């Protein structure tokens, strides 16, 4: 390992060659302010265009100031991070950025969680000498994401997320100079673009330029409407992150407090998307075994691998980018939509209510879910199966509005019947979880033997693409896992080229799976937070008595009373869907 020695603020530092000044300074406790820079540890993705120029430092012998995030340390370098020249430059640059930013902090969705705001605070900017015209852009309000580009500071993080991490390629810088901004080509609306609504751009945006569409007031309207029965379902990843919004340590599971809060908010029934996750396993697992046995029997028409379809961002991705492969993913609806379909039939029947009078609200870690529930095929006579989808962040805001001291709430249990779930459902919230849950059920159904171990460590982790072979009692099943659409693309290209050896593949659009979803509390690029959420999910699974979906008694009851058998006629009607070729749908 090559090392270099340098001096930063009069302190000697020894670092590995290739280390940037920013990183080197950190090792001696010097925290150089930065804005556009973002490093997603473990994923190998870094956003460092060197564009904001906030992290500039003085390097002896250099004519102009150097961006610390982009400048590698070299032997004998002398760096000053806080000379008069540096501080003046940094503050002036910050003033410039603020001078082209709306002063709407008091009413901005990101207020309090905005990196630009906290940096201005840190630098103590109290006046802006350089005022002038502000750049304004056309607004863009999709069903899931709202773009208010007047607040864009051109950090390009969303571009890195959209192009490099997700390979969706919707966002890029357009225009020049003062007018330059990140936008879809020709400034078209996201809704008309190939956007998957994965929300990773929102997750990394340092300001309020990219936010979710806030539907919380719609939820409150439904709750106070006496003619409506309002049901809420909460996705597995929400409980692993919601606490962060209330200052709790990342990785704290807050299931019981969340249920309590939801009840206090006035929902009539507090149910769990996990129930539908178990249902998903029944349908998807059966579909997998069906395709697998046909394949083993030599049926050439059957397509393998089967791909999971729980993730709406991923569904949008292949509908736009791989329309020729829309017959490969499982036809099973996502847990959110399965829940809606059951709630508005089976459960509405139990309540003896018309489906129109039942309002299904979902709390999701995800923004694509907002789009998913608005898809036409998920409605009956114009009444959607899931009426409103809100994000973890929106729920947190509702809890704050209700003046609840979240941390002090008692733990409560979900309502029955649609609130009961197994450990297999909980792990849907992390990458690798869906396929592990599927394996737990498929193994026992296929081999008719009980599983000896439930923790498939070989399917877990944070690697972007993982694979493992699971022995189904003599039948080796090759499993692939990808999270992040860029990784998904690689597996899809392999399938397209006929190089894929997998029988089943789990794909999640967001890095980390749902725990890293676009609707989760902002992690500001700190991947450690995702790992802690993941740990919380697996702990929750471990603590469950039942950990296999097919053992969920309420699932068994649902089949016995209502659905018949997995992948049966009624299931197909309610729990399965089909996909569309959206390649040609782009209009400019």
């Amino acid at each position: 390992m090559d090392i270099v020695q340098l001096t930063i603020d009069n302190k000697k530092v020894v670092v590995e060659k290739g280390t940037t000044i920013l990183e080197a300074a950190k090792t001696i406790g010097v925290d150089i302010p930065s804005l556009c820079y973002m490093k997603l540890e473990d994923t190998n993705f870094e956003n460092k265009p060197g564009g904001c120029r906030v992290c500039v430092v003085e390097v002896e012998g250099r004519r102009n100031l150097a961006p610390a995030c982009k400048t590698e340390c070299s032997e004998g370098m002398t760096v000053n991070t806080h000379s008069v020249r540096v501080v003046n430059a940094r503050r002036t640059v910050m003033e410039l950025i603020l001078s082209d930013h709306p002063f709407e902090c008091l009413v901005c969705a990101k207020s309090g969680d905005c990196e630009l705001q906290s940096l201005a605070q840190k630098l103590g900017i109290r006046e802006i000498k350089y005022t002038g015209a502000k750049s304004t852009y056309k607004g863009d309000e999709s069903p899931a994401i709202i773009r208010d580009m007047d607040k864009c500071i051109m950090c390009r993080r969303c571009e890195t997320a959209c192009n490099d991490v997700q390979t969706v390629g919707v966002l890029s810088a357009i225009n020049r100079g003062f007018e330059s901004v990140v936008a879809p080509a020709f400034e078209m609306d996201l809704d008309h673009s190939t956007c998957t609504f994965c929300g990773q751009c929102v997750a990394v945006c340092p300001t309020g330029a990219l936010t979710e569409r806030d539907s919380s007031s719609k939820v409150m309207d439904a709750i106070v409407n006496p003619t409506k029965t309002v049901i809420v379902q909460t996705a597995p990843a929400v409980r692993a992150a919601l606490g962060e919004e209330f200052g709790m340590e990342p990785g704290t599971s807050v299931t019981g407090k969340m249920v309590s809060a939801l009840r206090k908010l006035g929902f009539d029934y507090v149910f769990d998307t996990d129930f539908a996750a178990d249902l998903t396993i029944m349908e998807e697992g059966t579909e997998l075994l069906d395709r697998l046995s046909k394949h083993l029997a030599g049926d050439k028409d059957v397509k393998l691998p089967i791909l999971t379809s729980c993730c709406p961002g991923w569904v949008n991705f292949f509908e736009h980018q791989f329309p020729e492969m829309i017959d490969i993913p499982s036809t099973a609806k996502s847990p959110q939509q399965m829940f809606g379909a059951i709630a508005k039939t089976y459960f509405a029947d139990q309540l003896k209510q018309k489906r129109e009078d039942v309002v299904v609200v979902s709390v999701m870690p995800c923004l694509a879910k907002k789009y998913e529930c608005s898809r036409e095929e998920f409605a009956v006579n114009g009444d959607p199966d899931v009426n409103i989808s809100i994000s973890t962040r929106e729920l947190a805001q509702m809890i704050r509005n209700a003046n609840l001291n979240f941390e002090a709430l008692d733990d409560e249990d979900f309502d029955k019947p649609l609130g009961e779930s197994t450990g297999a459902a909980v792990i849907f919230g992390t990458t690798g979880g869906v396929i592990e849950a599927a394996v737990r059920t498929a193994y026992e159904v296929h081999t008719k033997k009980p599983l000896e171990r439930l923790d498939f460590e070989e399917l877990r982790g944070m690697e972007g693409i993982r694979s493992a072979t699971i022995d189904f009692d003599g039948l080796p099943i090759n499993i692939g896992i990808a999270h992040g659409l860029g990784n998904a693309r690689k597996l899809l290209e392999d399938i397209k080229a006929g190089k894929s050896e997998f029988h089943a593949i789990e794909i999640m659009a967001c890095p980390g799976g749902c725990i890293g979803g676009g609707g989760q509390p902002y992690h500001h690029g700190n991947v450690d937070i995702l790992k802690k959420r993941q740990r919380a999910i697996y702990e929750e699974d471990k603590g469950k008595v039942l950990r296999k979906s097919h053992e969920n008694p309420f699932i068994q009851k649902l089949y016995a009373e209502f659905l018949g058998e997995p992948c049966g006629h009624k299931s197909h009607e309610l729990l399965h869907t089909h996909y569309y070729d959206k390649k040609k749908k782009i209009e400019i």
Partner: protein
Amino acid sequence: MAKYKNHVLVCGGTGCRASQGEEIVQNLNRILEENGLEQEVQVVRTGCFGFCEKGPVVKMVPDNTFYVQVSPKDAEEIVKEHLVKGRQVERLLYIDPETKKQVSESKNMGFYKKQIRIALRNCGFINPENIDEYIARDGYASLGKALTEMKPEEVIKIIIDSGLRGRGGGGFPTGLKWDITRKVESDQKYVVCNADEGDPGAFMDRSILEGDPHSVLEAMAINAYCTGADKGLIYIRAEYPLAIKRLKIAIEQAREYGLLGSDIFGTGFNFDVELRFGAGAFVCGEETSLIHSMEGLRGEPTVKPPFPSESGYKGKPTNVNNVETYANIPVILMKGAEWFSSIGTEKSKGTKVFALAGKVNNVGLIEVPMGTTLREVIFDIGGGIKDGKKFKAVQTGGPSGGCLTDKHLDIPIDYDNLLASGSMMGSGGMIVMDESDCMVSMAKFYLDFTVEESCGKCAPCRIGNKRLYEMLHKITEGKGTEADLDNLRNLSNVIKDTSLCGLGQTSPNPVLSTMENFWDEYIAHVKNDNCPAGQCKALMQYVIDEEKCVGCTLCSRVCPVDAIAGEKKAPHVINPTTCIKCGACYEKCKFGAISIQ
């Protein structure tokens, strides 16, 4: 082959072609044919002669008569008088503005006297669309010599010893650049010709490519041989159609002759060139932006290092040189490092091509030895200031440069002197200003340009330049304050200090250098609400002299906003609040009663 007794060289540069140069060629050919002279007289379409002020230019060989401002209908007289009867067409000769006498040979004209043409050696001399003429002028001999008789290191040594520095603006030693790229190990390397000329008013590179495309191709091949590349790319702006056309022809011809392609000169060396078209973004002249643009990405710079010599086009080592730099290479190899380094100053060798523009009599393209003074360029070559006005300043280095004043007139022009004087060489734009030019407005003009051309990637350039422009605008509107001047200076310095690429690092130069040299003028704007040059409309006032006004009412009749009142035969008055300062009254008054204050 016909043995021509006379050659008629007609300028085929973009400027002269725009003034019907092509029709001149057609008419000449037709009339020659009618007179049975087509076997004796050859009409040659050449590249730019440089004397664009007086174009279209036609030069008669071998007697060297130089006709200026020729129109297509003059073709007949040129043939019948000059070629048949041997009599010069006197009315087409250049008239020296000082002596008022006709000058028939270009070498006796002030415009050409002090020029030495190295990069432009073939411009206005050969037919750029005919490789044979280039070869007849020792073309491709330097490449042949390098490939067959020299090692890459030896060639690079000559370039280093010659002292040639990058002509695109930076002035980095060319040989050194080549050597750095040569030493990087890689399976694939590229050489790139930067023909993204973007300074307002500059057309050096365009003229070279239009007038002598082969010299650039030859130099790129030599460059490739020295650095270990086998592929060359020319990044040229799409709005240079003639240069593109001639490059395409040149590449085709060179391929036919085997001077591009595989196994060149039987040495096993392979090299070919492709064109890449730019959309005219100024920032794409910056080499990392240029490379991104060629890769199909947004034309915006990335932080250096890594330099293109390590990681350039498609991540491979890439040597980027400017057109003019390349044009010097074949001659240096032909005539030697010693010859080249004997021209110029201690640290800047050879010549530099400038596009002389603005308020000079002789606008055009010139090539002078390094060390020529600004005075020689502006007054001898440029023929002095137009309309007998007083010289005020000259902007060198385009929007990245600074303005120089009469105290700089006797400084020998080279990279270091210009930098020391607060300007820069840049790519060679030179815009001359006279006493009626307001320097605040001048700085504003350049900032307007940089605001448009900033790529928007880094905050200081994207927002800072806009703010500079706004402050300058405020000052020219008479609304500036002294605090604005402080802010202007601080912001300029910060933009220079923090911007990502050369564009932002230099864009405040016009502000800083005008503040340095014309501080009084800034003060006059903000303190006295006065524009000394009388250019800022908001600070002007039209006033009628009671004594001189006879009350003819003409002014009040031409005033478009009815700002002038007065009885017939009595003095009139202008209402300053309604006046839009259009100047109509000023122009119409027959008694000189209206003045600007």
